[in-house]
């Protein structure tokens, strides 16, 4: 009987530890989820104030401007229906370009603009961030397939 008691104690202790871990994990999980919103949703007031979220779409052509000493950049993100103005301080990723897909993570300011903490536009030249693609699709502007070979003489099978 004694061995069985001890085993029960072990199991109870283990379950308690797992329970505590589960509570910690779900709490951390809930408070760190980052939701995604399209410019249209933000214009409709669906996006939260004072909470980190992501916005995605295309960088509107001719909208990129440098502010102050040049380390702060502002640009507009569009889903071809609505646009939102984004400010970001820091180095933009290599694949950030006007007319290309972009995802920015940050907060909404009281004036309706968006301050990004992170701008994501990495990966290869055909890459469209899934969030950006989603935003365009929802606004009714699906993106075409990426261009294939650009070299002369090359053809896709």
């Amino acid at each position, binding site marked *: 009987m004694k061995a069985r008691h001890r085993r029960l104690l072990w199991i109870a202790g283990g379950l308690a530890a*797992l329970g505590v871990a589960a509570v910690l994990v779900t709490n*951390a999980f809930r408070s760190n*989820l*980052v939701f995604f919103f399209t410019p249209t949703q933000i214009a409709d007031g669906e996006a939260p104030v004072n909470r980190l979220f992501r916005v995605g779409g295309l960088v509107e052509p001719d909208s990129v401007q440098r502010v102050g000493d*040049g380390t702060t950049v502002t640009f507009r993100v569009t889903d071809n229906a609505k646009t939102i103005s984004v400010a970001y301080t820091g180095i933009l990723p290599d694949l950030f370009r006007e007319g290309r897909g972009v995802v920015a*993570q940050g907060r909404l300011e009281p004036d309706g603009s968006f301050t990004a903490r992170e701008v994501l536009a990495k*990966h290869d030249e055909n890459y469209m961030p899934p969030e950006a693609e989603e935003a365009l699709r929802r606004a009714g502007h699906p993106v075409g397939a990426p261009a294939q070979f650009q*070299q002369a*003489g090359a053809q896709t099978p």
Partner: protein
Amino acid sequence: MIAEFGQYMLALAFAVAVILGVLPLAGSFLRGSTGARLMAVDRPAALLLAALGILAFVSLATLFARNDFSVLLVAMHSNLQLPLPYRIAATWGSHEGSMLLWVFILSFWTGAVAIFSSSLPDVLRARILSTLAFIAAGFLLFLLFTSNPFERLMPPAADGRDLNPMLQDPGMVFHPPLLYMGYVGLSVAFAFAVAGMIQGRFDAAWARWARPWTIVAWCFLTLGIALGSIWAYYELGWGGWWFWDPVENASFMPWLVATALVHSLAVAEKRGTFKSWTVLLAILGFGLSLLGTFIVRSGVITSVHAFATDPARGVFILLFLTIVVGGSLLLFAVRAPTIGNGPGFAAISREALLLSNNVLLVVAMAAVLLGTLYPLILDTLDMGKISVGPPYFDSVFVPLMAPALFLMGIGPIARWKEARLPDLYARLRWALAISVMAALLLPLTVDGFRPLTSIGLFFALWITACVLVAVADMLRGPDGRLSLRRFLLHPASAWGMHLGHLGVAVFVAGVTISNSWSVDRELRMEPGQTVVLGDYAIRFTGLKPLTGPNYDSTQGRFEVRRAGAAADGKPLAILSPEKRIYRASGQPMTEAAIDRGLTRDVYLSMGEPLDGNAWVVRAHVKPFINWIWLGCLIMAVGGFVSAADRRYRQHAVRRRAAARIVPASA
């Protein structure tokens, strides 16, 4: 011709894998000479499979080296201007190529098991090789039907589309093969578990055979992940070394489970307990490495690692995952009652400590799994797009690992079966006192009280102190004096363990110190301007254009001096970060420049050009950052030392000796 030859090798390899998967396994259930004859197929077939895998892989590598643009894959991922090492690395720079690397490495491991398994009983070896062949057959099928790397392009392209510039880096040459060695190496542990379940016996001998294979796979996995991390650190240009990106998590989850497995195998060998748990971990580890392959290759996520999105591929891998994991769990359910429990142990004993660490590692893995899969599942079900950022992983992973790090110090010192707390306290009180004091005082000598830094430092110092106590005990003779001559009295596996634990301490120190005292700035700089960052003054002296083999670049020149040193004195280092434009794709790339040191890195990258010659520049000073990867290297070396233990080879020696004696006496 080479392409057709390679494809033919793959088809042959599939046939051989099917034969190896069926005949020896069937033979292992038959008695008498038929069974023996069927089982005898295993080693030749395994070696043939390895040879075919190597030939298929070399075929593709040759096509890349020769830039044969009549092969679709080469036209897609190579270029006339691409230098040779990157052309060869481009072999695995695509979905098809990386799956071929998977198959190649799996066939390599299968061949290695065939060569180094002379000590194994025939039945066990036949079943292990059959299991490996079954996995190989699945992947070959996948390759041949959904991802043929040798597909032709008609008419041939004049030039290729080039390898993604981000992948044109020495990291690309070493990171994927090492990582796959680890990933795929877990299949050997899995095969041992399956073969053990079929025979329904997990004795100390089984654990002793399985251990070195698992440890070696774990070492490769450790090195592969560390190398990926270094690469991300210098290539992505913003100084981070771990991003909790789904792809990183995909390799980290098997690592966590493999770490648990390596430890539970030790208990299975030494104490004959934890057997069911060990089997479950082996299944889980390989299952996670398949899941990782699914996550990375199926296109459910988009990243630099995901090359193509073809739903058929994802479905195939998911199906294969279900068969492998489901089948082995079913086998486990049937066999679990026969596996049995080993001898019991007290609540405070080395077994109990190892069990706690195992549970913590698996729970941490589950937390990472949740954060990785949840967004993918929501997205697949079209329930919205969310992302789970690093804050989640940090806030869950760190508290779970903290107790594990504390117990890690005690584990090797506690006795098997039953340890006494007063005993442990007596042996470790100085280690505890010194590490607590030093952890509290060290930050004070730098810039004041920092509780989190102290906690991190405490774990690093505590593990080190405990290792030192254990090592001192090992070197102390019966007369109580330390003697280095006692070094050889202890098995390599014990030294490997302590070395591995020391690696963890170095790693923790690196993470803690670099997180606590890194400084960085992003600013506009003009030639002639100096910025002071931490203890360093960084002066921008100018720009020059540069022409590389397949890119054009603007290179900055920066002089690094100690802050306060004369501005015309000899600089400590000259750093030349670049902004490259790759000609074939037009893609820009930031190349950071780093002055590396054991106690700090000075890290510079150039963002965008502003008016005139001014640039946005990012500068970091990162103390002790290299300790992170140094720690991983030490862990892996510890693993290799441990796997080289004579004990794991003794069987072979004894058996060979016995074989020599028998004919002589007959």
